[in-house]
């Protein structure tokens, strides 16, 4: 697949939830090549500080309109600068990068998606696709989204889920909406209680969450597609900065790494050495960066 560097303009930018922005970009060439679950690198401003592009998953790809959308949270200087872009601003982006999601190989059995915080970004259009697929058989309720956040105001507006007709399980760390506690706990309890055996689990969120999703998927024999994140300099497979400890099938004892940009960002749970993954502390307050 061709990687493209494209100068694009901002169609619109709006704040949709706490520290969360939706950016629409007019990116004709990249929108035609991109697939769900892939990502792009965005140069948030000219100059040398911040120096590196920032990776974002595609939130929505609209090849007909020639538009791609990014849904992102302002967590540092790069995303803060990006949040300052108005309609008409020019941005230099590179994409599409990485492997992307695959639609389930199995029949229209139950499908599970897990999103932690801004991890909802690559999930929405995937859920729409799955809902369309299952609509003729009347089984869209068998698409379960487990959507967790620290607090309710971090959730993106729920209207979209209602129209899809999927089952959404909400959880927040502070109990302000849905289950109080971690979304992975809600996932485990619900699956056990309702005796659901999904044919695939899609997941995106912080690595600490992915760790538990992976463990659950492996213990229950559920095929998984986990969209993982890492710091990244190039996104092209050159810097080798986005390494994750991985299982080498040929030599399981040996130290081995896969790279989020070229081997991912979507991985099967069994590919990663989860006990070696360093999880990051919760995102610190934004004022320290700006």
């Amino acid at each position, binding site marked *: 697949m061709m990687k493209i*560097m494209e100068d694009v303009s901002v169609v619109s930018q709006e704040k949709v939830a706490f520290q969360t922005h939706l950016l629409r970009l007019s990116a004709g060439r990249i929108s035609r090549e991109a697939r769900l679950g892939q990502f792009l690198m965005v*140069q948030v401003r000219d100059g040398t500080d911040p*120096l590196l592009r920032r990776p974002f998953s595609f939130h929505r790809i609209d090849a007909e309109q020639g538009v791609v959308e990014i849904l992102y949270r302002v967590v540092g200087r790069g995303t803060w600068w990006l949040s300052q872009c108005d309609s008409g601003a020019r941005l230099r982006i590179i994409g599409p990068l990485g492997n992307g999601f695959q639609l389930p190989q199995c029949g229209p059995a139950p499908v599970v998606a897990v999103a932690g915080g801004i991890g909802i970004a690559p999930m929405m259009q995937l859920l729409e696709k799955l809902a369309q697929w299952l609509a003729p058989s009347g089984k869209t309720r068998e698409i379960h989204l487990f959507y967790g956040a620290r607090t309710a105001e971090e959730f993106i507006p729920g209207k979209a889920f209602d129209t899809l007709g999927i089952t959404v399980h909400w959880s927040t760390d502070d109990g302000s909406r849905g289950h109080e506690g971690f979304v992975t706990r809600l996932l485990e309890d619900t699956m056990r209680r309702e005796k659901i055996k999904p044919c695939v689990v899609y997941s995106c969120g912080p690595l600490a969450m992915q760790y538990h999703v992976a463990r659950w998927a492996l213990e229950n024999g559920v095929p998984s597609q986990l969209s993982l994140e890492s710091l*990244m*300099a*190039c996104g*092209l497979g*050159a810097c080798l900065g*986005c*390494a994750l400890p991985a299982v080498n099938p040929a030599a399981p004892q040996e130290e081995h790494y896969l790279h989020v940009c070229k081997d991912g960002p979507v991985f099967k749970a069994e590919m990663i050495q989860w006990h070696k993954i360093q999880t990051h502390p919760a995102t610190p307050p934004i004022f320290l960066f700006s």
Partner: protein
Amino acid sequence: MAQNSNAPGDTPDLSVQLGPLRLRNPVMVASGTFGYGEEYEDFLDLERLGAIVVKGISLRPRPGNPPPRIVETAAGMINAIGLENVGVDVFLKSKLPHLQRLQVPVVVNIFGNTLEEYAQLAAKLDGVPGIAALEINISCPNVKEGGMVFGTDPLMAARVVQVVRRATALPLITKLTPNVTRIGDIARATVDAGSDMLSCINTVAAMAVDIFSRRPKLANVMGGLSGPAIKPIALRCTLEVLREVHCPVIGIGGIATPTDALEFLVLGARAVQVGTANFVNPSVTTEIIEGMERFLRVEKIARLEDCIGTLDTQCLFPFAEIACELTDLP
């Protein structure tokens, strides 16, 4: 600079002589920032480059360091990749053939844990078609064995160059570390030991701290700083090296624009390597080459060679005294 009367429309001659190598222009890509070339083919015509320096190769494959391996800093980044590479056998079998088909000089960056490994590696690459030169890495700050240990001691640096020199007839470039008190001493030692050319600088030893976890931001604790932040250090090191030795020198460090590249050439470097900027803008090298061409047109200079080493040497007198004060031991 030599003036001439060429019309503004004429294409200036960007070619440079780098030791035994004739480059179509002085813009090379730095080892470890360009993979094995194929990663960048969607973004530029590799045959436009002066030369490609591939990711550092060792005798056996190396997995590299645990993550986090990189961190962004002001106008730069710190990396501790740990020389992850496929090893020389896979390189020769599956990476080099593609580069051999291109009309672009390929420089292979080599790295060993021991003197013997350097020698064996050089012997394996000796006589392989399509390799223009070897670049000896004695300056990686991110590995426990070898690496910078060889590059910070003049005697050790010389011994590495000697064993590689005996093992191959290929032109040799030695890549120097800035993490020394007197880079000129290392330059002198490696050239005396048989290095045909020098490249400087590798990354600057550095670290970053996370105030929330109270941990270093890199799993390796320390790493190498690169990017625009280090260009002034690189220029100073290049000048010190040029004053010590007379072999061709390749300038590296924070080059991201045509102006950056020309600064090193004016100083006396015969070529440059672009590194971290490739991560930010994968076609930056093409833009630098085109920018150099525009500079020559505007300045009405026919040949880029006429720019090299044109620094006003009158200015160097105060430098000489200050440098002595800073670096001479009592």
